[in-house]
């Protein structure tokens, strides 16, 4: 990165290789890299050994010993020439530089303030938007199962259940799959195939959720339906188990959970991969030196080192999955009911907002939907913050995963 960059700088620094740069060499000894003010110290004339206030040209400079190096400092910023014509121009440049600096700082600072304000604005507006609903039916209504906007019943329990259930199914599939795949990529597979697989999974992350939903409707749901019918017909009475009950429709919690697993997988995989890559080499070598097989090294030496990071990855994945809207809306069946069966259709917080917002019969209904959004927001912010703080402290204490991005 460095060489071409130097060519692009308008100033003449192209010849100064950093390690040999006088400033870099001198800063530790002089205590600070600031330019010395003229007359602040009785420095010997800087021009004596070098012949005039030249620009530093790094490597060619003769560097005397460290003690003698100090006097050479002023050559970096030569004292102002006693030339009367040069002085006003110099001052002019300096003052515009200062004003421009202030303006630039102000401008970028405003941008940063806008970003910081955005998070407050989101929370503020979501709270403000849901106040009418809370005023009307109180906070307790969150835990009521009845949702019927035309009759002013706004219970959120069915949606909370749907969101929790589908997210759990998704994470139950994606977490083991992601961790095992990450182990295969980092510890087992040679570099080429590992790279190909991680590229493919990254591409999966780039596919918009509405397209996965489209694929879900036309391919996944029929597959799920076939699976459900085979369970239904199975001779062991599997359909009497509560998680396999109900009609084999195809759409429902299972299909939604599968799509969520597909969406969470790239995320969990990439974070876990980073975590595993951070495990020190010595940890592996120690395992092999004790005579461990590769799997024992993974199981006893590498995974224990990474559990916390993997847990953080799981939290982040969960936070992402909670708010997934489109794909879930397209395959969950959109029926507000609480059923333990994987095959039953349901409803989630996000999908009820997506489906009913533009058809809400009253302002109160809109406010109730916004309050569902507020629940979603608070859940995701809490999970995200918890995971980030955890990963942050992990970073600090162990120097482990840098991966959570």
């Amino acid at each position, binding site marked *: 990165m460095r060489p071409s960059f130097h060519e692009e*700088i308008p100033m003449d620094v192209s010849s100064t290789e950093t390690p040999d740069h006088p400033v870099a060499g001198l800063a530790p000894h002089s205590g600070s890299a600031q330019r010395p003010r003229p007359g602040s110290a009785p420095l010997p004339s800087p021009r004596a050994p070098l012949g005039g206030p030249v620009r530093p040209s790094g490597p060619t400079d003769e560097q005397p010993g460290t003690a003698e190096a100090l006097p050479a400092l002023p050559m970096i910023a030569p004292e102002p020439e006693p030339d009367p014509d040069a002085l006003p121009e110099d001052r002019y440049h300096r003052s515009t530089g200062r004003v421009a600096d202030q303006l630039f700082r102000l401008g970028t600072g405003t941008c940063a303030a806008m970003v910081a304000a955005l998070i407050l604005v989101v929370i503020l507006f979501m709270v403000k938007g849901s106040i009418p609903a809370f005023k009307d039916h109180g906070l307790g209504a969150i835990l009521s199962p009845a949702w019927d906007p035309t009759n002013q019943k706004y219970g959120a329990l069915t949606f909370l259940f749907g969101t929790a259930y589908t997210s759990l199914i998704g994470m139950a599939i994606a977490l*083991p799959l*992601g961790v095992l795949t990450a182990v295969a990529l980092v510890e087992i597979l040679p570099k080429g195939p590992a790279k190909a697989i991680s590229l*493919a999974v990254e591409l999966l992350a780039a596919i918009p959720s509405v397209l996965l939903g489209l694929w879900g409707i036309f391919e996944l749901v029929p597959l799920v339906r076939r699976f459900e019918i085979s369970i239904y017909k199975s001779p062991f009475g599997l359909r009497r188990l509560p998680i396999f009950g109900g009609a084999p429709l195809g759409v429902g919690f299972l299909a939604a959970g599968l799509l969520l697993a597909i969406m969470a997988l790239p995320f969990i995989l990439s974070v876990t991969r980073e975590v595993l890559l951070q495990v020190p080499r010595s940890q592996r070598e120690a395992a092999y030196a004790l005579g461990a097989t590769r799997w024992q090294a993974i199981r006893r030496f590498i995974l224990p080192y990474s559990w916390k990071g993997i847990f953080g990855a799981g939290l982040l994945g969960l*936070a992402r999955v909670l*708010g997934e809207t489109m794909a879930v809306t397209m395959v969950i069946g959109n029926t507000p009911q609480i059923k333990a069966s994987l095959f039953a259709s349901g409803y989630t917080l996000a999908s009820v907002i997506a489906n009913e917002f533009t058809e809400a019969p009253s302002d109160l209904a809109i406010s109730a939907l916004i309050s569902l959004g507020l629940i979603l927001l608070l859940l995701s912010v809490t999970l995200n913050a918890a995971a980030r703080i955890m990963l942050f402290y992990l970073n600090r204490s162990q120097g482990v995963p840098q991966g959570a991005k």
Partner: protein
Amino acid sequence: MNRSHQWRKIQGRSMEAVCLLAAVLAVIPLFAFLWHLVAMGAGAFSMALFTKLPLPPGELGGGLRNAIFGSLLVVGTATVVGIPIGIGAAVFMTEFARPATTSLLRFACDVLSGVPSIVMGLLAYQVVVRPMHHFSAISGSVALAFIMLPVVVITTQEMLRLVPHSLREAGHALGIPAWRIASSISLRAAAPGILTGAILSMSRIAGETAPMLFTSFGNPFMSTDPRAPIATLPHTIFTYAISPYDDWHRLAWGGALILVLGILGATLLSRCILWWHQRSLHS
């Protein structure tokens, strides 16, 4: 001793096989999706998809011209607003702010990037749609800009952090004002990476559907007015996908293929920029 060694070997091999199986399973969804997409989308792909407007159900043919244009307009506006602000914030974080402020802002961005897109849509609804009293393309852009902002800040900041500190010190040593150091040294050195991040964040918001439902709303006709409701590609795909008409399903798959090609193209382009840049460094 010998038996236990055998046992450990068998156990190790079988667990490794499980890991490899997981890796194979992990790539299956992508290929299943792409296979189905190409199979369904290729049949629907034609010039008419780009040049014609959608027809009512029952009439064969029609295209997605309005949705393609709408997506370009909405995403373009969001980009024009979101990227400069994002880059500005990232510059402030790396060049001017104190470390504590920087990590606080970074934390805010991390949390923001995890906020579900539908919530950002609800925010845009309250901030733009409600005061205007009607759905509009501009409200869709605002929602997308909200979604894009934290992503741009994070990628830009990562790229700026990669610029070696000695370069900035060199600038300071030459007495260059701080704003010139930020713009001509840091930003310029990080430019390819920032551009890549910007393209990727654009391709991310191009596929966003949930916030479009109640901001840009959709429109079966051609519209170029940013104050009026407008069709976007992902939202149109959603409406057609859940409709009962085979012809609309066909259009949805055609639209899906366009969207994926656009996103793949953007990803490829960003990789090319990085590759090209790296090559120019080595020569």
